[in-house]
């Protein structure tokens, strides 16, 4: 293959037609409450880990909805599981529980 001295830019667009949303369905069955999230960001604001890097629990939940599992797994590793997020969530979402599940995504290989 020829090189022309530049790289094609990878599209950041989320293609929901191609995203794997089956896990979202599975999550909906297994874990209750997480769909109630309205993206208010109070979890991220209080997060023990968020202040010290790019970790953003609110965004992780949103990425889940979009089926961006690889990114979810990459992000979730930064969670320290302290559970402060649970206390501030106005929609009573157990964000910590979600992050624990997402940490496991690292080991799940997807097609």
């Amino acid at each position, binding site marked *: 293959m020829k090189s022309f001295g530049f790289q094609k830019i990878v599209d950041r667009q989320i293609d929901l037609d191609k995203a794997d949303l089956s896990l979202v369905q599975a999550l909906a069955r297994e*874990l*209750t*409450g997480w769909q109630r999230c309205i993206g208010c960001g109070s979890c991220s604001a*209080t997060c*023990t*880990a968020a*202040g*010290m*890097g790019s970790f953003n629990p609110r965004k992780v939940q949103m990425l889940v909805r979009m089926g961006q599992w690889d990114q979810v797994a990459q992000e979730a*590793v*930064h969670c*320290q*599981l*302290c*559970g*402060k997020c*649970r*206390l*501030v969530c106005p929609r*009573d979402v*157990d964000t*910590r*529980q979600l992050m*624990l599940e997402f*940490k*496991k995504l*690292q*080991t799940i290989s997807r097609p």
Partner: protein
Amino acid sequence: MTFDPFVLPFSIGLLYLMVVVAERFRHWFVGLPPKVKRTIGKRVISSHTLAAIWEIIREGLFHRNLWRRNPLLGYMHMSFALGWFLLIVLGNIESRFYSQLHVNPPYYPIFLKFFVHDSHVLPFELSTIPGFFRFTMDFLLLYVLSGLMLAWIKRTRSRWFGMISTTRHNAADRVALTALWLIFPLRLLAESFTAGCFGGGGFLTNTLGAALASFLPEEHLYYPLWWAYSFALGVFFMLLPYSRYMHILAEMGCIMLKHWGGSEVLTTQSYYECSMQACSRCGVCLDQCQVALAGNPGVSPVSFIRELRAGRIPKEIAEGCLMCRRCQDVCPVGIGLINLRQWAREQLNGRIPVVAAPRYSPVEMKAIPDVVWFAGCMSHLSPGLIRSVQLLFKQAGVKYYWLDADGSICCGRPAQLTGRTAEAEALIEVNRQAILDSGAKLLVTNCPICYRVFCDHYDLPIEVMHHSSYFLRLIDQGQLQVSRGLKAFNLHIPCELDRTSVDADRMKLLASQLVENSEVISQSEWCCGGSLGRLSGQDEVTRKISTDAAFNTAQSNLPVVTGCPLCKKTLQRYTKVPVSDIAEQIYLLSAAEKVN
């Protein structure tokens, strides 16, 4: 005559049992880490063994813990354990008089009344002894049967035994239970019929035999009854390793391991396996389990252990628990239920690799402080608590360094509770270094969750205190002046402080020093339900747990005082009575003192 074919079912069962159990114990011993094995080697011949034996007698035979809980329940369990044990011991002794041998076949004492009755000739000098044995053995049989009767009653009247819920049995348990319940009535009938035909029974068997002989063809019935008795015993022994009755042997194993292996043995795979077998499925934990009470009995330890025994670790059961320790506090066998659940979680969640190292930048210090203060992340959501602690430090003239002033990182306990031990270790290491770097000789925390992990896993060379203990000390030393101004309230002891610990006692003592003389403190033994231990479960159950907890904690609608920011926040959500941290109350009282 010392043999009859009917002894075979019993003998085969017993032999099978011995082989299986021996293999299990061997497996557990082999599986122990070398260090523990060395400790055991040193302790076998020492006072540890005596202590172990004493505990086995106390708990295994007399069931002291159950007596304490409910005398009827204690009596029931004791009648089985002690009664059967004495039947075996005395039966053995008795049999020696007849056989004149030191060693008899194992079945001989069990079926002695078949082989030996009145027509049996004894040397003259021993002729008074059978009467004593006949009476005693019959008495013991009656004692066991009385227990059996209570067991029947308990199936339908569990509340008489201080229990609301009872356990449900699996198939092996059911058959074993049936066999066990048959053993003693069959023995009674076999011995009575034999006595009816040949004489030689005691007050119970003789009388019953004589009475029944009037209308039953005992001479045809007694032999089949011995078969049935032997058969019941055989079945029971065969099923024992696979049923809850394995607890009889495993409990002894656990007690021995605990005394011989020290605290290190408690977190070994072998101990977990042995202790999960040691559960007698008595069901005492059921009424303590708030998750069970809130409608999810599957999460209770007794159900959890049943799954573990079957080789399963269902996620919702392993993760639904609050880790509140209430079950562990009452377990008559003393099983380390929290550790066991923790172990299960590690199996589920612990194997995922830890990728990210925690990032952390502690604040710079100017001088070495008296106290390094770790408020804990939850405390940051309770500014009243933070402020009270700061002002109390100031009043007492304590030089402190606030390690997590900027929010800091997590103590590691929450990660640990999820079973992610390695992840917790990474956090612990960073925090530990920061604590040591502070140079302080004392670490104070507001959060019992942090406190638990600081004590148990940080291996710190400095003293660690929960703020309640620390403020008690400051008051005792006169560094803080506090007026007794508090009216009646409910004291809520946080689970992670451990209700059975000296820390909890100190918190109670502190509370008693805050109230006006005539005022009452009622103590709540409930977990607030907001525990970080509960990793998953239905929202409705979680809410019910907390609703129940808040209801039971805020008794008489009096204010609640606790020592944990998480409990505070959780209870606040579910009750209308004021909920505060004990530090906030101390601050108010000390401020009042200053004004006066």
